[in-house]
């Protein structure tokens, strides 16, 4: 059985190499063919366009009868991807797995997951909240993350690392952050609280200033 797994993985890696059209790449991380790194470009017409996304792939001993384990190495701002750990919420990586699925087809599924987020089945609740309350602001933040982490377009032409704008990273308005910072709170704390409360778009009107100050004082 071990032979079959090795044969299959090797074949999958080879297939991926030969197929130039899909832009999906699979590379070895170390000597083992069971720990791989997959990568694909961000899909067009999405905030992820132009980015290059890397995925950590671990092939379990029972592969292909049990699903592969995948998580994003590149940080992604997406409702179904944990913004902290890169863990992915996708049915085919769990109970909808079928042995006929391959590494390539799974990576393609990930790519299409970036096109069509499922905010109702979120991995990252905060990001999902952001997505549902104000799509425009979410897109902006996702684009910013793509630019910072996935080498997306819009990056300053100078090679120097651009100063990361923590406010934009959290998908917040600079004016809001400045407002509470001027009250004497630490900037990072303000960002943390406002992000947690989803202080964005139409939601701003729903959250009272006192509530924010209360959270900040905790």
């Amino acid at each position, binding site marked *: *059985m071990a032979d*079959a797994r090795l*044969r*299959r993985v090797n*074949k999958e890696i080879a297939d991926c190499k030969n197929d130039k059209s899909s832009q999906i790449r699979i590379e070895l991380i170390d000597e083992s063919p069971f720990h791989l790194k997959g990568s694909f470009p961000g899909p067009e017409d999405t905030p992820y366009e132009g980015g290059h996304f890397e995925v950590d792939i671990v092939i379990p001993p*029972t592969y*292909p*009868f*049990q699903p592969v384990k995948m998580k994003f190495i590149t940080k992604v701002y997406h409702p179904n991807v944990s913004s902290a750990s890169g863990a992915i919420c996708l049915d085919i990586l769990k109970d909808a797995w*079928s*042995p*006929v*699925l391959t590494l390539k087809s799974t990576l393609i599924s990930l790519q299409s997951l970036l096109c069509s987020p499922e905010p109702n089945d979120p991995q990252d609740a905060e990001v999902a909240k952001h997505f549902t309350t104000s799509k425009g602001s979410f897109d902006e933040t996702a684009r910013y993350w793509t630019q910072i982490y996935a080498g997306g377009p819009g990056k300053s032409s100078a090679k120097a690392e651009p100063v990361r704008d923590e406010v934009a990273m959290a998908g917040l308005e600079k004016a809001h952050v400045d407002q509470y910072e001027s009250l004497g709170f630490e900037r990072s704390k303000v960002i943390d609280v406002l992000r947690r409360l989803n202080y964005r778009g139409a939601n701003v009107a729903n959250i009272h200033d006192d509530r924010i100050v209360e959270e900040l004082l905790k």
Partner: protein
Amino acid sequence: MSSDYEYSDEDADYYDDDEDMIDGTQEDGQSCRLTHRSTGSASDEEMDMDAFNEDFKVITKATRKSYEIPYESLTQASIEKVMQADIEHISGIFGVDASVASLLLRHMNWNKERLIEKYMDGASAVSEAAGITLPEPPPSPVAPIRSSTSSSSSRLSSGIRRATRRNAAEPTAAATFPSTVKSKRAPALDPEPFVCPICFDDSQTKTLGLECGHQFCTDCWSAYVESKVRDESELSIQCMAEGCSLVAPDVFIETAIAGDKSTWARFHELDIRHFVASNPNLKYCPAPSCTFTVSCPAAASKSSLATVVPTVACEAHHKFCFGCPIDGDHRPVICGIAKMWLKKCHDDSETANWIKSNTKECSKCQSTIEKNGGCNHMTCKKCKYEFCWVCMGPWSEHGTAWYSCNRYDEKDGIDARDAQSKSRSSLERYLHYYNRWANHEQSAKLSMELYSKTEKKMEEMQITSDLTWIEVQFMKKAVDEVDKCRMTLKWTYAMAYYLEKGNEKELYEDNQRDLERAVEDLSELLEQPIEADSIALLRQKVTDKAVYVQKRNEIVLEDTANGFVDGRWRWNVSVDGYHAA
């Protein structure tokens, strides 16, 4: 050691047969129980009724005691027979293969009535949901995995498609595996080698597939089925193709794992467990690696658990409760109360009681205050309310009596103190019952020790006197009895904690006290040193006492069980599913 109840009998044969002895003392036991009931203040009429009932029960005693429940222990083979009968029944009604019938039954959790109803409503919908037929496309009504011949010899092939019969709807598949065609197919198609889409091996010649036509090599199938059955304990094994909902029938699975006996046995066990779990009348024995099933229809419904304690035992003598997952025998207490009691004991809800007992609440703002020194003039830190720690009344009413409180009658103070003493006594009450409960549990745990001690004593007896092995068995019997009664006693304390004060509880506690006293007497007898000249006397005493203890135990169990049936018990809490009559 003497007790109020001594049985002496001149007949020497009396002691040689314990069974006889029990019957012989039955009347005595009965009468003393009735005397106890009469000490309570039940009305005469009730008394007569009870007496009548008791007489009636004595007559029917040969059949079953009121605290016992009818049940039956079934072997795995007899369960299989029931399953087989269900399958044949369904396959007869629907005119389908046995393997199809079993897939349908599994899909509907073995609920025959609902299956028949649904099948009559729309056979195709049920077949699709059960993974027997493909949902789309509908043109050719594919018979659920069926071979053209229906003889038993063709059963093997019924679920397996060796690419000889393919679904016309799968033209792409047709080109892939002509090599597997077992010569029946004309070699018109290109003999391109079959490449399994899972292991990418082109040297495989044997393939398998379900009705859907998705073919995979046998090695992959076997690895897949094994991983599903062993790692996921999955009974319903779907086709490996993505999104294909067909479920593999048993014959297919048997072929796929090709002689892997342990996986097949596991699959079979899963099937039986699923059947047992689906049937409320059945329960698998929870003892490790025990394969017996107990059937107990009397305790199948939740409502019945309010009146009976379904203690059952499988053929291998593993005692368990049919109604709840509590280990062993929790008679005479019903499941709901036993569960509540255990939860109370495990919770640290008693921490709250401690706080209540050791602290007081500010009568104005209700903050919890612990006094750790100083005078009785308290000022609440939070609301600045000034009060007296002793009487809890406002300090302003105390005038100049600074260090002594003589205002005990003030209403404010009384109210505050009332709440205080109530919570303190509730803790004491709980501890009273808990200590006794825990004590019996501890004693029961030590019974193993008592066993080995008793065994030694029995050997000693055989040496020091001319008693034979069989004649010293009374010691062991007595230990068994003590053990059993301690279990009963243990749970009676859990029940007493929740019983509402009143005549019924008094009667109950009388019975409990009699049993407890008898059990303690008997265990003391068992601990006594053995002297050669007094063995005969000891033997007589132990035997007498054991019989009496057994009788008392039966009385407690029976009276409690009857109380549940009559709805006689009143609780100081609301008990799930229990409605007092």
